[in-house]
């Protein structure tokens, strides 16, 4: 899933480690999210969005999600 995490992190001048520690995951998880290899759970998506004071939709792009 496409995300704006990298862009937002750079805007706030944060390292992956700092963001990871703030939202309670490992640095590798942030890397995977930024590389679009891993899709965050709802709780993690909420934590990241809350950390940047944005809504989930503003951080995560749901437009390319498969619909059944």
């Amino acid at each position, binding site marked *: 899933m496409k995300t704006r995490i990298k862009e937002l992190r750079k805007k706030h001048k944060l390292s992956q480690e700092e963001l*990871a520690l703030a939202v*309670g*995951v490992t640095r590798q*998880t942030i890397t995977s999210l930024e590389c679009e290899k891993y899709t965050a759970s709802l709780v993690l998506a909420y934590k990241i969005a809350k950390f940047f004071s944005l809504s989930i939709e503003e951080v995560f792009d749901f437009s390319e999600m498969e619909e059944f």
Partner: protein
Amino acid sequence: MKKFQEKVRRRIIFVSILFCLFATYIIILLFFKDNLPGLSDNNRMFQLGFFSSIELLMIIGLIKHIRALKNKEKLKKLYIEENDERTILIMQKSGDWGIAISIIGLALGGIIASFFDQTIFLTLIGATLFLSFVKFFLKKLFSYKY
């Protein structure tokens, strides 16, 4: 975090007890080998290597956990390391795949062994059935639990 702190403390106590038990066994293997007549020298050396490696791993784990107990930052990192959702997902997926591959490997081994030795064939097929049962049981257990 207090709950996790308590969990780490209990873990340290448990591992320390195991460490002492294994250390005692290593001492017995090293200095009282005459009291273990049923154990061949090869098996004794294997057990010595095995238990020494476990002891080493325990020391590394104990140091990590004791440091985490003394430092809140390290405790938080340990908590994150253990509860990271991606790590948990990887563990779940690899566990499932690991058992599946083991079942296929054992079954294939059993079939090949059936051409040569009946005992090995039965042992491998028994292990295959046991693992299949474990996989089935765990699947049922966790689907009931979650």
